[in-house]
C-alpha cells in the first residue's frame, strides 16, 4: 500500500495503470469479508463517511453505505430532497458544513459534471465521485474491470464493446479510460445521435452494428437507455432502438458462448437488454453488484485507512 497518495477519487482519467491495479488487488482481498458470518473488519473505525446524493440511486448508494459499514466507519446519508438544498443551500455550503463536523470522506453523486472536482478544490475531507453528470462514474468502471478480470483472467488485449447512449453516459467514459489504461481494446456502439461528435479522439472503435461488434468481443457492457431520449428526438422509437441496439437472445445466439454480458443497472428489460439475456448464463450482472461492494471497500480503505 506504499504507493497510494491520493485523498480523492474523482475520475479514472487521472489514475494511472498501477493505481487502478492496486485498487483491484485490494478489492480482491476485501471480497471475502462479505462472505463471512461476521461481515465486518475494524479498518475504518472512528472514521465518518457522508453520502451526499443529489440524484436518485439505489445500487451505488447502498453499495457505498455497506462498504463503509463493513469497514466499521460511521455513515451518514444525505439526499437532495432531505437536505438544506431544498432551502437553497449550495452543495459546497452543505459539504463545508459536513466538514465542520469533521466528516472524513464525502461520497458525492451530482447531476452536474465536475461537482466532485469543485468540492475537492475547497475541502480538506476526501471526495469520492459516485457519478457526476455525464462525466465519470469511476467505481462503476472499476467494478466492471474487476469483473472482467475475474471472469476472463486478464484485461490487456481483451475486446470490450460498450453499447448504448455513449453521449450521455458517465459509465461509458469511465470504462473507456479504465479499460484502455489496462490495455484493452474498446469499441463503442450505439445510434449516431447518441455518439459524441469527437468520439474517435477517445481512442475507441466506433460501430453502428451490434451483432458485428459482438462477434469480435470478449465482453459487452450494455448501458441503460434513458427513456427521455426518445422524447428529445435522439431516437425514432424505443422499439427501433431495441431492434438495432437491444441485446436480445437472438443476437446473443449468433455470438460466442463465452461472450460476457454486463450491465451497470438498473435494466430496462426489453429495451436495451432482453430479460432472458439479463438472467441467462452469460450475464454477470449480479456478480458486478457483489464486486462493486468489494471495490468500494477497497477505495474507501485506500483513501482513508492507510495513514495509521
Amino acid at each position, binding site marked *: 500500500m506504499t504507493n497510494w497518495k491520493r485523498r480523492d477519487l474523482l475520475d479514472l*482519467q487521472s489514475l494511472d495503470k498501477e493505481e487502478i491495479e492496486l485498487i483491484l488487488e485490494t478489492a480482491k482481498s476485501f471480497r471475502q469479508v462479505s462472505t463471512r458470518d461476521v461481515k465486518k473488519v475494524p479498518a475504518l473505525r472512528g472514521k465518518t463517511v457522508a453520502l451526499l446524493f443529489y440524484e436518485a440511486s439505489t445500487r451505488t448508494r447502498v453499495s457505498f453505505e455497506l462498504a463503509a459499514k463493513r469497514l466499521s466507519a460511521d455513515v451518514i446519508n444525505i439526499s437532495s430532497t432531505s437536505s438544506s438544498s431544498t432551502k437553497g443551500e*449550495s*452543495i*459546497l455550503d452543505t459539504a463545508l458544513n459536513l466538514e465542520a463536523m469533521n466528516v472524513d470522506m464525502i461520497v458525492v453523486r*451530482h*447531476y*452536474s*459534471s*465536475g*461537482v466532485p*472536482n*469543485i468540492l475537492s478544490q475547497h475541502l480538506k475531507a476526501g471526495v469520492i465521485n459516485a457519478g*457526476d*453528470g*455525464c*462525466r*465519470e462514474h469511476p467505481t462503476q468502471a472499476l467494478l466492471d474491470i474487476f469483473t472482467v478480470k475475474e471472469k476472463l483472467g486478464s484485461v490487456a488485449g481483451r475486446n470490450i464493446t460498450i453499447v448504448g447512449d455513449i453521449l450521455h453516459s*458517465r459509465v461509458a*467514459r469511465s470504462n473507456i479510460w479504465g479499460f484502455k489504461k489496462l490495455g484493452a481494446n474498446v469499441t463503442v456502439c450505439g445510434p449516431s445521435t447518441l455518439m*459524441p*461528435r*469527437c*468520439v474517435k*479522439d*477517445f481512442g475507441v472503435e466506433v460501430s453502428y452494428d451490434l451483432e458485428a461488434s459482438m462477434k469480435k468481443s470478449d465482453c459487452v457492457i450494455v448501458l441503460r437507455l434513458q427513456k427521455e431520449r426518445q422524447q428529445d428526438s435522439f431516437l425514432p422509437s424505443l422499439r427501433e432502438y431495441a431492434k438495432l441496439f437491444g441485446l436480445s437472445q437472438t443476437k446473443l445466439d449468433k455470438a460466442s458462448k463465452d461472450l460476457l454480458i454486463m450491465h451497470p443497472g438498473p435494466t430496462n428489460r426489453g429495451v436495451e437488454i432482453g430479460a432472458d439475456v439479463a438472467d441467462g448464463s452469460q450475464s454477470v450482472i449480479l456478480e458486478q453488484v457483489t464486486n462493486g461492494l468489494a471495490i468500494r471497500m477497497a477505495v474507501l480503505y485506500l483513501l482513508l485507512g492507510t495513514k495509521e
Partner: protein
Amino acid sequence: MTLLIKNAIIVNADKMYLKPQDILLEKGQIAKIAASISPQGSLAAQDKHKIVDASGKLVFPGLIDLHVHLRQPGREDKETVETGSRSAAKGGFTSIMSMPNTTPVTDNAMIVEGIIKEAKRVGLVNVYPVGAITRGQLGKELTDMAELKAAGCKALSDDGKCVESSQIMRLALEYAKMIELLLIQHCQDHTLTAGGVINEGYHSMILGLKGDPGIAETVIVARDIELAHYLKTRVHLAHMSLKRSVELIRFAKSQGIQVTAEACPHHFTLTDEAVKGFDTSTKVNPPLRSAEDVAAIREGLKDGTIDCIVTDHAPHTKEDKETGFDTAPFGMIGLETSVGLTMTELVHKKVLTLEQMADRMSAAPARIAGLENKGKIVEGFDADITIIDPDKEWEVRVEDFWSKSKNSPFVGRKLKGRVEVTICGGKITYQV
C-alpha cells in the same frame, strides 16, 4: 479645460507618426497637433496636472468597445453604469456601447435616456446604450426603433439572445435601413445549442458537459448574410468565434455584401481546453473554441474580415458563478484586459501592426457605429485619447479590477502592454 500631451507618438489607423508630436486639447476637442506646442495661458503656469508627458509611450485615439454589459438597470450587484465606466476608463476606453439585456430590457427610450443621464453624471466614458430589436427581447414585436435612435442609440441588438425568426429579422433589417440604424445580431440558433455550455468537441466529451456546436452560430451568420444581401442593407455580427464564420464573412465581403463583424480577446486567446478544471470563469457565450478557430479569428482580424475587437464584458457575481458549470451564467469581464491581451497576443506576435490595432479598437468601431469625430487623432476631433506603454509587463490580479465583478479567466496571466492614461472629452479619466 485645457490639456497638453507632450512627446506623443501618435498611432492612427491610417498613419503612425514617426516623430513625437504635442497635442493640445481644448474644450473637449483636439485643438492642435504640432511638433512642439508651448504651454500658453492657463497652462503657462506649468500646472503639472495639465501636462501629460507621453515619452516612450504610444498615443492612440480613444478606444471604443461596441459590446459591453453594464447590468444597470436590474443587476447592480454585478455592475453599474458607474463601476462599468470606471472599469472602461482603466481599460483605456473612451466610448462604449452597453447591451440591452438589462432588467427590464432596454427596449424603450426612457431606459436609454436614463442610462445616458447616469453615464453623464459619472462622466468617465461616453456610453451609447444599445436598444433591443424586439420588445422584451422576445423575438416577436419590433421596438420603436426611431424613438430609440432619437434617444441616443447608435445600434440595436437583442444580444444575449438571437433574433431567431427569419421573418422578424428581415422586417427588423428593413425598418432599421429606413431609419439608418445599425443592427447587431447575436448569432446563435438556440435549437442547435440545445443547452450546450462548452464547445462541442473533444473537451465537451471528456468533461461530460453538453456541447454547443459551432453550426448554431454559422447557420445564423449565413442566414443574416443572405438577408443583408437580399435587402441591400447592412448587419453587424457580434462576437464571432469560429473559423467557418470568418470564412462566410470573408466570402460575403468579397461579394460586396454590407456585413461587419467583431471578435473578443478571449476568442483569439483561449481554447476550450481552458474549461478543463471546471473554472466557471471560462464559461462564455459563444464558448471558447478550438485552436483552429483561434487561429482563424486572428487571421480574420489581420486581414480585416473581422472589423473590430470588442470585449463582451459580462460581469457576474461570485455567488452566481460559484455554482456548477452547467448552472453558472455565461460571460467574463473584459474591459480591463482587452488592451493587454491585444498587445500581447496580436501586436507583439506580429498579427496586427500598431496601426491595425488603432483601427480594430477605435477607427473601425467608430465607423461601424457612426460615432462622429471619434476614432482618430486629428485636429477638430473629440479629445478622446488612450496612452499605452507597449512594453510594460504586468500581471492580471483580482484585487486590481475596478469592475464590480471579478469573473476573469485571465487572472494570474502575465501581459505585455498596459494602459497608462485615458482621456475622455479632454479630461483625464484614468492614470496609472
